[in-house]
């Protein structure tokens, strides 16, 4: 019996049989993914050893390793030297849009999430932000940089730009405790629309290093524009997010 048939036969739970001529390691990847989603492999526990998996499915160990590696790269599994391969639970979920509400880029109330204010300074707008905010070249803007950690691991860095004239109080506000949306509402600034863009980028070595992004893992860039009801831009932010540490969800309506 060839490897493919052996795998199909052993996989009697019919989990994810995506066999559009799929190689064995990919089928195993989907089986393991389904077992995690089904709760058979629980977060924080180790999955069976590579030897054991190879034996169970009657396949080559190298094939097992490829499947496991793929899920490690996605951040679903974590390999711990000398201990095994563990299921990563509860990824830091960023809510892109909530029903009827605004975006929550990060919820400080969420367990294990911490936001650190790394930089906060005033700087001249310069060409780009003078045009963005429709202010003078030398008008001052706040530049704030956050590092966001989840379970003691850095998952993203966020840079926020806000003209000083819009929110001078930002100088004394700790921007890591409240979201920008909250801060605006505290000071009676009406946020009326928000647009976000999420894309996958390579990034530059410096950014990748600051977030400890492993080779081969993609980076996400999330840009956000905050506007008032006249359409004036109030703030702009840009985040770099480790793709193996975050997922996004979004609510869709008809």
């Amino acid at each position, binding site marked *: 019996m060839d490897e493919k048939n052996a795998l199909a036969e052993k996989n009697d739970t019919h*989990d994810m049989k995506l066999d*559009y001529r799929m190689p064995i390691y990919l089928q195993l990847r989907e089986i393991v993914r389904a077992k995690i989603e*089904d709760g058979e492999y629980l977060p924080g526990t180790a999955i069976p050893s590579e030897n054991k998996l190879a034996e169970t499915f009657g396949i080559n160990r190298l094939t097992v390793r490829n499947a496991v590696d793929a899920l490690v790269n996605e951040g679903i599994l974590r390999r711990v030297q000398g201990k095994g391969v563990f299921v990563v639970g509860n990824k830091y979920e960023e809510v892109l849009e909530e029903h009827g509400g605004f975006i929550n880029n990060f919820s400080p109330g969420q367990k294990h999430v911490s936001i650190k204010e790394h930089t906060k300074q005033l700087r001249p707008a*310069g060409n780009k932000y003078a045009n963005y905010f429709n202010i003078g070249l030398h008008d001052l803007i706040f530049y704030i940089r956050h590092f966001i950690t989840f379970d003691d691991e850095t998952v993203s860095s966020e840079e926020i730009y806000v003209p000083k004239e819009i929110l001078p109080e930002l100088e004394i506000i700790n921007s890591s405790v409240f979201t920008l949306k909250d801060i605006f509402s505290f000071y009676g600034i009406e946020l*009326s629309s928000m647009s976000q863009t999420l894309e996958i980028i390579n990034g530059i070595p410096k950014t990748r290093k600051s977030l400890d992004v492993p080779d081969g893992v993609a980076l996400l860039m999330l840009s956000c524009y905050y506007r008032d009801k006249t359409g004036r831009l109030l703030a702009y932010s840009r985040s770099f997010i480790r793709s193996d540490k975050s997922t996004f969800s979004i609510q*869709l309506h008809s």
Partner: protein
Amino acid sequence: MDYRIPPGTEAVEKLEDFIAVNRLTANTRIPSERDLCEMWGISRSTLRQAVDILVGWGVLYRVRGSGVFVSVPKISRNMVGVDSMIGELRQQGRVLAKKIVSSRIIEATKQISKKLQIPLGQKVYEYIRIRSVDYTPALLETTYIDCQRYPDFDKRYTENTPMGDLFKNIYHKKQSSGKEHISVTYASENEAHLLEVTPDSPLFFTSGVVKDEQDIPITYYKQLIRSDLFKFVSEIDKSRSEE
């Protein structure tokens, strides 16, 4: 107090602003290093680092021996509503096509039965389709539909019928809401082949359930989306939604 922009940052922002103000379009070459350095009074190495950053962000790309060019903008996958993407891309005048890679009836796995809220092992249609935009394969989609709720779906569905139309016209179910999860995965060899990218290229991996007006699942789907072609956009307008 003297406020300054760090020279490296300033060069990046000047370059971004230059592209925006001069409305440089896709595949336009930006001026030579020498000209830009002279214009802004900055060093070659500062400019080069700025270009590196914008290449890293996908704003610019380099062609060896001929210069630096403005990237083709990514297509916005606008997260406004269920099945909004197709209509929106059509409005943009893009040529859309889809091809069925495989279609069959399978027994619902635990995952599928949970998502479609049907008993384990119940028969479901599984469609794997590839969608192309402007003749470029862009999206690989796997869709599951309950056979019992949608009898003879397979006899009615063809590549040329939008699924949404069938649900609405034949089964009188309107796709009304859904929640989508977005993460990143990497193309396997087969996926890379179908999407015409190199293996291990990063792809958006989305999955979700589309529900009808009674909140009953219609479809459960998974999509692999080329990240060099698409970006996700979410627009929320409070003033509009309150009307």
